[in-house]
């Protein structure tokens, strides 16, 4: 097990899920450029694959994968529904909401139907859709990050308009804030977001290399940016998550890592990806061919395979497990150890 320890806390690499594929063999499956995920009860994950983001590619549109946290890949849906799917969130009544950055809308899906690869419902799978393109309040331009609050209202990062907007889940506009620029409260092409247990809103301000924290109503509260010196500098952060202790995790897209901060913005440490052990989907694909497994055993250094390549979506579940979308086509999961004592310190104490 690979562990990253700092400040009396530790993160143990747990496991990886999936591989870069559209296929699903009944047990394992994968993701094609995963950009976001949503955690539902009973350890169910909905993983949003971007696909190629082109209108013509065969089988390579975005889609939603449904899997358990221990990688029982239950299947996929919404294979023909998106152009540029960007963010995903689940409502309290167990529907998934997906933003589409090209179509400038939000699409809503049921979660109880999956379609075997490569099938889809030609009549369409969405049960709802709202949002229209524009820059007026309530209109959307390149909507990306999406998250529900405790009241089942939904916040959306309206990336093309450099702002955050809050809607009812039926799409009625409630409020919004932001504007283009680099001052506190302004944005430059923001991407992902999250909401903590107290309702504070965190937005990955991609172009400004920072994460901004706001009150539920949009008052600026804090900026996470760090410096090169403390190692907490961000390069094009994609998304953000907060654990039950208030620690803040940022997928530092440009630096290929997950940066972890104290609630006050001090930097704690960073995760770089440790998936040197194969996911079940990886085991499946490598065992299909004896020559592949022989070659794999001869690889001298698996570290490059373990590293994050452009981490995007990030979520934290009820047990404070950190789940990261790795653009390579998989998820990486870390478990948090809140009372970590380093082995050498342990020896000293004994």
């Amino acid at each position, binding site marked *: 097990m690979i562990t990253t320890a700092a400040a009396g806390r530790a993160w143990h690499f747990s496991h990886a899920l999936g591989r*870069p594929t559209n296929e699903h063999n009944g047990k394992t499956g994968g993701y094609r450029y995963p950009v976001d995920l949503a955690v539902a009860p009973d350890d169910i994950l909905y993983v949003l694959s971007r*696909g190629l983001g082109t209108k013509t590619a065969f089988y390579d549109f975005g889609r939603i994968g449904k899997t358990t946290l221990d990688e029982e890949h239950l299947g996929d849906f919404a294979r023909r529904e998106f152009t540029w799917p960007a963010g995903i969130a689940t409502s309290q009544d167990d529907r998934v909401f997906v933003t589409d950055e090209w179509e400038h809308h939000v699409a809503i899906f049921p979660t109880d139907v999956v379609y075997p690869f490569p099938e889809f419902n030609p009549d369409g799978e969405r049960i709802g859709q709202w949002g229209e393109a524009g820059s007026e309040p309530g209109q959307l331009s390149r909507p990306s990050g999406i998250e529900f609050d405790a009241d089942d209202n939904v916040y959306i990062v309206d990336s093309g308009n450099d702002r955050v907007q809050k809607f009812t889940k039926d799409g009625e506009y409630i409020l919004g804030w932001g504007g283009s620029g680099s001052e506190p409260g302004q944005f430059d092409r923001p991407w992902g977001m999250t909401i903590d247990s107290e309702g504070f809103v965190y937005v990955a301000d991609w172009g400004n290399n920072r994460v901004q924290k706001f009150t539920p109503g949009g008052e600026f509260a804090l900026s996470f940016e760090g410096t090169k010196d403390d190692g907490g500098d961000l390069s094009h952060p994609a998304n953000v998550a907060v654990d039950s202790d208030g620690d803040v995790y940022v997928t530092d897209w440009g630096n290929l890592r997950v940066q972890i901060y104290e609630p006050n913005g001090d930097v704690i440490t960073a995760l770089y990806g440790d998936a040197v052990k194969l996911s079940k989907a990886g085991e499946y694909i490598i065992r299909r061919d004896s020559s592949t497994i022989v070659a794999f055993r001869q690889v001298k250094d698996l570290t490059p395979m373990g590293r994050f390549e452009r981490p995007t979506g990030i979520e934290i579940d009820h047990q404070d497990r950190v789940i990261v979308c790795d653009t390579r086509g998989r998820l990486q999961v870390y478990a948090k150890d809140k009372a970590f004592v380093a082995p050498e310190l342990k020896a000293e104490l004994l």
Partner: protein
Amino acid sequence: MAGREEIALTAHLMRRAGFGAPRGEIEELAERSYEDVVELLLNPQDQPDADMDTLYRYHPMAEQTLTVLTGQVNWLYRMVTTGRPLQEKMALFWHHVFATGNSKVESVYQMLKQVQLFRECGMGNYRDLLVRLAQDPAMLYWLDQNENHKRSPNENWGRELLELFSMGTSNYTEKDVFECSRAFTGWTLGVKIYEPLCGPCPWPFEFHPEDHDVGVKSFLGHEGRFDGEDVIDVIVQQPACHRFIMRHLYNFFVADEPQVPAWPIEPPRDPDAIRELCGVFVESDYEMTPVLRFLFNASFFKEAQYQKVRNPAEVVAGTLRLTGDMNAPDPRWGDLVNQTGYMGQSLLDPPSVEGWHTGKEWINSGVLINRVNFMADQVRNADLPGVRDIVERVAASNGHGMTPEHLVDECLDLLGPLEVKEGTRAELVEQAGAAGPIELETEAGYNDFSNRVEEMMALIAGTREYQFG
């Protein structure tokens, strides 16, 4: 305001040293001295790079490439949007010379890394580039260097290094090929991580000393316990190497030569130019930038306007730069990147290690229709900013009423400036006037005029003259 000749020369430079530019940009550049513009091109580090982060955010497939198509999006987007056109053009030049194909390599990611090598080192030292090339994983695999062992040398890389990458045939013996191959034994590829597991991981170059033949080699009249770098040092001293690389440069940047296999028989189009280029090449210790500086400032270059059939990458990227289309992530990229392939140049996947045949061989009946239609559909689409700009410029040039002749000459000027044969011009003029007199005063008149300009540009796109650049 720069004169017509300065405009024409600057446009020529930008077509050759880059992928062309819209008229506004040409005019700005033409305000400077020609030599200054050359220096701008020669110093890419001072110019903005293509915004790859934006591409990768919206199209992660273009970075974590799993298919040729996605790799082509990566490169074509750069060609269309880069602020460092010569750097990109040189990458394409080396891709032509050191042709490596994904059909065998089967890792577009690794192919793009090779192109990145050309981008970073392609304007630097040729000797150093060859050393890096000899260690490039895509090249190692493409030419079976991983099969080149001390006890059983494989000559694929050794042969092509001499024949296609440095000297050309008939300047070395079979023995030299063998000795060269021996020198590179042990330069190999580590075990690759299987891409379907976790997406692409870089392939490792490895030197295996136990598999390296340390014996004495006798190569091109030199003798010693040579390894690969030593062999490259010998190669770059050869006059045949200078002539070969400079002729490639001439063929790519100045004017079409016969196909490479004919070079041992057919003399260069301009032997003096090759001789002068060789002189600069040797003088500078094989640095490419001084050679390019000399080339672009030479009169043989300035006089060679429209002496080359444009390759499909130039056609597609050049047209898009002109019309201002596709300068950002866009779902249409998936369709668009097929265009160069439809025209006979599937980027990152040349047909063989000999690369593409160039010049008139870019044109055949199977691809000409695609080539003309792509350009015509772009230049007659008034929704595109570059096309609107041209229409407005033609309209604004109207001092004393618009004649068909004036319309045609303005269009030819703005698309080039392009000179066409008298017969061609006569046809164009007749078409421009076919629907009666032109007037711009009324809205209906202006719309009709606008349609005629678009139609005229579509026609020009199909002329023989416009196939050259």
